[in-house]
């Protein structure tokens, strides 16, 4: 054990803030990375499931273009 007390451990002879900031940021960023990766995965699974759900218009044939003008009154 390199420290006499818990408070000495926290203070680290005045270097505490530097050391603890580093560790906090390290765990924070690794945590965010993990959380983000898990969320991405869930999103992809949900998206795949949505894609697999049968679409109402099973007949995917594209409608023939008619190029008829759309009448809209402009008052």
């Amino acid at each position, binding site marked *: *054990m*390199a*420290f006499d007390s818990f408070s000495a*451990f926290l203070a*680290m*002879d*005045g*270097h*505490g803030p*530097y*050391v603890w*900031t*580093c*560790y906090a*940021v*390290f765990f924070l*960023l*690794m945590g965010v*990375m*993990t959380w983000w*990766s*898990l969320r*991405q*995965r869930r999103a*992809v*699974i949900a*998206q*795949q*499931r949505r*894609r*697999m759900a049968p679409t109402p218009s099973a007949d995917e044939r594209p409608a023939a273009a008619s190029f008829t003008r759309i009448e809209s009154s402009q008052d």
Partner: protein
Amino acid sequence: MWQIFHKLGSPKWFFGIASTLMPWLLVAGAALLMTGIVWGLVFAPQDYLQGNSYRIIFIHVPSAFLAQSVYIMMAVAALVTLVWRMKLADVFVTAVAPVGAVLTFLALFTGAVWGKPTWGTWWIWDARLTSMLILLFLYFGVMALGAAISDEKSSARAVAVLVLVGVVNIPIIKYSVEWWNTLHQPATFKLTEKPSMPAEMWVPLLLSVLGLYLIFGWLACLRMQTHILAREGRTRWVKELVQAREN
């Protein structure tokens, strides 16, 4: 031989292996990393020169180490992508690049914070930190290019070319930055290179490096699985797998 290689490249096969491997990677990685860090923070002796601030080493060195080796791994995968067009290889490059960028950033951040009590300034244009900064730029480039090309296959191949060009440049960059550093300020002492590090210091350091490696492996598997699911959505096995989950 070719058969094995081909099998290794099969996303379905990888997905299965990764699923069984991942819990082990996570548990072992977390255990090793925590052991290393707790050992380093609580039990390792104080450094005679830098005092307690050196305890940052137990995350700084693993991050820096991983940041560089992730790029090298990406380069190997990029080569495989371009030469054999193995699907898994391109998935690896795109999946892992953000992890590499985060690790590089962590190495930079912890290095800068460490610099404050050691050199009395947050940032110093030291050769290692500068090289790390350039590595971060390289990661950003890879991610930006990958995001800019919508078609996944073309994106993977373009990124592979960039990663390979980058990896050829990394030694040149390192060398030139070191030369530049000696030109402007002769290095007095470096952060991590100790003449002799006692076992109470390097053993926990080794443990945390190994631990972070395994955690990276877990993250890489997780992210690769996600990318595979997104890409192979049309194949039957992915459909069955998606359906089997949660219902």
